[in-house]
């Protein structure tokens, strides 16, 4: 939303078929189509089977031949049996979206392509797919295409990762390890890390002590409010400790995003967070 507001034609790609983006915008499911959510902001859910169909069509150029191929049992079987082929064509579609000269008919260029990547452990494997694949398929067109995709991922000038962390012990450990692996093993740039869901610091330690004296009182409302305040204070404090720990352990700049006390996060909440991003 931030990029779109700045006038960049932006697309959010989802690779898990969960359609969180269209859900935030209260839009019907978008599927394997580029659909505009708001001005300049588009969304697509990249399905590997659809990517495969599109990819093969681009290779063969003839639709009838492609369709015949996909009716063939053996072709489908081989495609399913080749390790990493699904991830590869998914990344291939992301690459296609990022081209200034789009390969698909009537494709228009995007200024920014945002990928909602799989979670930590799977994410590393996902980004490494092209390189792994180039090693398995040592010759042929897919070998050079896999290399091309790897160059896209490791092009530090144009491609970067933003890690999203939570202010808790395990997520901080995992984010630090993730940054290391992304830099060293994948070779992709890590541009920034967002610490998400940070509680506000509403009370000082002195005030917390004052509130602590009310937690055994007789007035039910006062007691409950004081306990909720102390609980929030403890959380906020332990979150600040985790934030400091994250900053010590990573190289990329760390930005924070506030916890939003709203039952469900929709388009308004996303808008609020967009304003906080610099």
């Amino acid at each position, binding site marked *: 939303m931030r990029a779109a507001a700045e006038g960049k034609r932006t697309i959010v790609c989802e690779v*898990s078929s969960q359609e969180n983006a269209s859900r935030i915008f209260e839009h019907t499911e978008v599927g394997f189509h580029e659909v505009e959510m708001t001005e300049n902001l588009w969304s697509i859910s990249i399905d590997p089977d659809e990517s495969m169909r599109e990819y093969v069509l681009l290779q063969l150029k003839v639709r009838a031949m492609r369709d015949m191929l996909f009716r063939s049992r053996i072709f489908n079987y081989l495609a399913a049996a080749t390790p990493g082929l699904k991830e590869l064509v998914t990344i291939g579609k992301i690459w296609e979206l990022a081209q200034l000269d789009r390969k698909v008919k009537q494709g228009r260029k995007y200024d920014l392509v945002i990928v909602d990547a799989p*979670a930590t452990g799977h994410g590393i494997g996902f980004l490494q797919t092209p390189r792994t694949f180039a090693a398995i398929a040592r010759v042929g067109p897919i070998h050079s295409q896999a290399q091309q995709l790897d160059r896209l991922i490791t092009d530090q000038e144009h491609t970067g990762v933003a890690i999203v962390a939570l202010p808790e012990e395990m997520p901080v450990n995992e984010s630090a390890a993730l940054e290391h692996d992304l830099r060293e093993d994948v070779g992709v740039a890590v541009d920034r890390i967002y610490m998400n869901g940070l509680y506000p610091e509403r009370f000082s330690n002195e005030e917390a002590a004052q509130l602590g004296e009310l937690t055994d009182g007789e007035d039910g409302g006062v007691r409950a409010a004081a306990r909720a305040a102390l609980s929030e204070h403890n959380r906020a404090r332990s979150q600040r400790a985790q934030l400091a720990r994250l900053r010590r352990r990573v190289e990329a700049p760390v930005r924070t995003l506030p916890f939003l006390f709203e039952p469900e996060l929709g388009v308004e909440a996303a808008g609020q967070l967009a304003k906080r991003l610099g």
Partner: protein
Amino acid sequence: MPAVGDILEGKDICICAGSGGVGKTTTSAAIATGMAARGLKVCVLTIDPAKRLADSLGLKELGNEAKQVDPELFATQGVEIKGELWAMMLDAKATFDELVARQAPDEEARDRVLGNRIYQQISSALAGSQEYMAMEKLFELHTEGRFDLLVLDTPPTRNALDFLDAPRRLTQFIEGRSLRVFMRPTGIAAKVAGRGTSIALSVFKRIVGFDLLADLAEFFNAFSGMVDGFQARAKRVNSLLADPHTCFLVVCGPQGEPVDEAVYFHRKLVEAKLPFGGVIVNKVHYPAEQLRGNGEDLVKALADKLGDESLAQRTSENFADYQALAERDAANIKRLATELRTQGVIRVPYLDEDVHDLAGLAEINRYLFASSSEREKIAAGRI
């Protein structure tokens, strides 16, 4: 509201399932601890490489062999382990290699598979192979009979259900019976297979290269002697999952999305005729006794006690925010209970500190194993 101890009475296997980020590993560890405290010999298995389980149990590292957790560690947290607690972190690749070694007719066949590049990719990276190996290890441990109870922390896959399908998908893949016939260069089948097939093969070859196709052919040939063994085993794994002594617990968070996923997951379990035991909701904001205090009255009452208008105002605002989350959680949990047609939703409160060590584990443990009324009492004391 039942306690976990009652749900697991007489069970051999407890499988904790749910999407990522809902505290599944902690819950699995807490369940295993609680059952070990009751005198059982328990082993908790995880395949999460993020070392969460090792960290939360105070272990430096975990490997493919079960390791006993020092009961002294828990004694310091006021938890007496009357039985034994063991833990292991599954190495999917090593387990797959062991399985191949066991199924291979001879050493040559084994080495051909282990040395094949396609196999090496599949055994470590193919979607579903981790899940399949988790089931495999579970089956192996269960057959050995060393433990009274096995607790499995399922992998945080993108789709929480992948693992239900994994055994079927993987054996189907390895089987590739029709494919092997076609790939024999001089086979009769190649001649009668028809023009469509040969075109499909040649296009596939054009796209991925001859090299990869040759590796695939070699892979299926090397595996050919083991297909029946793999299938028979997968069948036994599946019947173990459906056994009444197995119990699936669904773990989720109180927000809308995790609840949706838990509902979906429960439906899939029922469809697959797998034994559903109950649902555990983590990080719940318990509603306070007074759900919507009159804002102004509360601010006034607080200001009287605190002698500080601004602090009273902020305390009241914070309380309203907290209550909004508590109301959301209560509504989502109600929906969950209705959809699952169960009263058995076990709620674990959102603690002030995040849970990542033995002390946190001991506290979670208290909630999971407390009776309904005890749990309400502990929670009420907090807010």
